[in-house]
């Protein structure tokens, strides 16, 4: 009898407690809170439902998340279909923003305007405030003044890729590390002289990685991966408006420099075609190329496979060009979480929003998505993070092994990125390069703002963008490879771009800035 009373009392207390802590998601009376979630799966770190991070976060919050694992190559298709039709949509979608199609979907009511529910996302709000990203987050609002997703947040952007050179060859030929693009030209020239059969500079994934990483040193960002997403416009960081980067003098100087490299055989002639990761690695590992623009975490793979004795690749800070030393512009907000409109119809919508907010943005849980669980993946010695032995000694490195084994550091689930904390996962060399870049100052500029278009303006901008982008790509390749002369044909090129409406295109963008 006593037991029964005790159980009843306990039950009453918990029920009472849960109404008291109305915000607390944990105390749901009827078992765990259940909801479904789209997850973008990358084959290099296949999702495992028994990942420590995944099981631990569900345990901590007493939620039962049904992850829908969708291959990254087809993720956008699946998301688009779910949002467009509104049927079979999951409750939560990860790894999304309101760029492109999603903006129109949001304005037509397919996505929950999460900024209307700020009271339910205390952890997200706190992190935004802590990083001082209020303005950045406000820029994500659409035409109607509402924001439709919770982005991932970065305190200091990473310098995660850039110029990578054969350090052993620099030493062998008595060269010093390049600081400017003219230095780079001289270095490549020596490489070519000593190895006539080689093409010293090669590029990962076609020219777009080169362009996005080097153009900002000339004050422009153009092409398929240009920072503004317009292909032919660039952002003027002092005047705070867009200009027609594709027909600017800055671009003319830029393409003149690289056409010179091309002409003298310093640049991989295959660069105009996409060079995929495998062939790129092959070129470097076999010594056919000695310099590249690529990402730091790719160095290890190439070095391991090379048979050249003494082979050593090193990454260098951004080189100075006419507009200073700049890397590709980066945003302090990244892809994040959105809720399809149907989720708002659920009775427990508030609990879901609160649970998701706490799952990804709270201090403890965001730490876990980065470093795992203290005592299992790492321990703390004073302020220093010491990783468990199986991670420290993993041949693939700390970062990768934490991803594969524990699901830490996946950009789908990690929403809070603290640069200093991330650096603990990398070697001292990488941290030193990042420190050097930070010392130069303003190397990584912000992504240009997205103008607030309504449907009609978006349509107009889109119809101008494609033909301009095509013409730019065509002329750019022609200038680079020398089939068109930059001196003689420049005015014909500018005229063509003007005929295609580049000036009107700039105007639409500048007229709709926030």
């Amino acid at each position, binding site marked *: 009898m006593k037991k029964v009373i005790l159980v009843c009392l306990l039950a009453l207390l918990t029920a009472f407690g849960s109404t008291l802590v109305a915000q607390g998601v944990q105390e749901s009376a009827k078992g765990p809170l259940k909801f479904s979630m789209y997850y973008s799966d990358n*084959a290099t770190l296949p*999702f495992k439902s028994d990942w420590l991070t995944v099981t631990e976060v569900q345990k901590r919050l007493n939620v039962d998340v049904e992850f829908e694992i969708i291959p990254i190559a087809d993720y956008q298709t699946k998301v688009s279909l779910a949002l467009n039709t509104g049927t079979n949509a999951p409750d939560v979608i990860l790894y999304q923003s309101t760029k492109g199609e999603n903006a129109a979907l949001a304005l037509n009511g397919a996505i929950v305007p999460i900024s209307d529910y700020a009271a339910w996302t205390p952890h997200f709000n706190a992190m935004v405030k802590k990083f001082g990203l209020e303005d950045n987050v406000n820029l994500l609002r659409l035409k109607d003044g509402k924001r439709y997703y919770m982005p991932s947040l970065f305190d200091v952007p990473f310098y995660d890729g850039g110029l990578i050179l054969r350090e052993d060859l620099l030493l062998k030929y008595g060269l010093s590390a390049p600081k400017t693009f003219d230095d780079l030209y001289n270095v490549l020239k020596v490489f070519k002289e000593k190895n006539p059969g080689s093409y010293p500079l090669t590029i990962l994934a076609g020219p777009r990685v080169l362009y996005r990483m080097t153009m900002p040193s000339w004050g422009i960002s153009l092409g398929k991966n240009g920072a503004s997403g317009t292909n032919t416009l660039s952002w003027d960081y002092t005047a705070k408006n867009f200009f027609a980067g594709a027909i600017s003098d800055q671009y003319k100087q830029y393409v003149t420099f690289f056409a010179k490299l091309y002409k003298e055989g310093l640049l991989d002639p295959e660069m105009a075609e996409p060079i995929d990761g495998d062939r790129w690695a*092959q070129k470097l590992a076999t010594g056919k190329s000695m310099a590249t623009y690529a990402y730091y975490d790719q160095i290890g793979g190439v070095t391991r*496979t*090379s048979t050249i004795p003494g082979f050593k690749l090193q990454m260098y800070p951004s080189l100075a060009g006419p507009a200073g030393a700049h890397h590709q512009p*980066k945003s302090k*907000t990244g892809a994040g979480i959105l809720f399809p409109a149907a989720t708002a119809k659920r009775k427990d919508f508030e609990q879901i929003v609160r649970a998701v907010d706490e799952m990804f943005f709270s201090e403890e849980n965001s730490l876990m998505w980065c470093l795992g669980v203290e005592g299992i993946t790492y321990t703390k010695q004073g302020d220093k993070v010491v990783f468990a032995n199986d991670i420290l000694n993993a041949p693939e490195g700390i970062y990768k092994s934490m991803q594969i084994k524990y699901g830490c550091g*996946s*950009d789908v689930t*990690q929403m809070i990125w603290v640069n200093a904390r991330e650096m603990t996962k990398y070697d001292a060399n990488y941290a030193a390069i990042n420190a050097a870049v930070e010392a130069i100052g303003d190397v990584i500029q912000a992504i240009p703002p997205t103008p607030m278009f309504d449907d009609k303006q978006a349509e107009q901008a889109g119809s101008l963008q494609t033909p301009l982008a095509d013409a730019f790509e065509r002329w750019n390749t022609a200038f680079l490879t020398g089939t068109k002369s930059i001196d003689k044909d420049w005015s014909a090129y500018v005229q063509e771009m003007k005929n295609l409406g580049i000036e009107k295109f700039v105007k639409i963008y500048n007229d709709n800035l926030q």
Partner: protein
Amino acid sequence: MRIRSSSFSTRAFDAFILLVMLGVLFTCLVPFIYMVALSLSSPKAIINNQVSFWPVGFNIEAYKQIFSYPNFFQAYRNTIFYTVAGTAIALVLTVMFAYPLSKPMLRGHGFITKLVIFSMFFSGGLIPNYLLISSLHLTQKVWAMLIPFAINQFNLIILINFFKSMPAELEEAAIIDGLDYAGILVRIIVPLSTAALATIALYTAVFFWNDWFNGLIYLKSKQFPVMLFLRNIVTGTSMVGDAAGAGDKTSIAISIKSAVIITSTLPIIVLYPFLQRYFVKGVLVGSIKG
């Protein structure tokens, strides 16, 4: 069966054909052999361009790794199920549709044939199709893979014409012997159509085996076919993000890509020789006398 001809020109022509066919065989086999060699070689040898048609640094690590991918076998089982069930359903429905349409005496058969042909060239598009399947409550069920694709217009037309070419006397004889049309179809027509049916079965099986898109849009991830898995590994790894963090930019080793391609295409290739025996000419020879 071979008829030997003493004429030189015929022999020369035979030799020429043989050469051409060997050339075709060679071009078909080379990429496949290359893939097998890559999948069994060490990554180091591949990057250093040492692999041609024979594995260098023989190892089966790549295969070990794909077998350790979560859900690989699940996806494989799904694909086998879709292929077997899908082909069976498609064959039954196509035969039942084609047979009546092959009878010009039936009123309206022309109209229905035109409807079928119309749908060959015009379709509702992706979103209407999705809404249709969704309102039929087929999404997230395996039926979404099987039913909508059961009848392929092209296969249907092949079969209609095949049925039309059968001698009417056969059916007349069967009717005299007391069979109704259902009996004729099951006992006479189908057994005599194995060549056509095998062709259609092959087309359909290859379709279901290769299909990834319908799986992607209609099904849950546990029901995904292996081709989606393959696609993810072969193409889905070169994402370069715009965010400030260190995204994942490492690519998957060529040996693993090759191993995935081999493991997912081999079974359907193996199917061909088994179907070969149904492609026999002249089944009808001698079926009608007098």
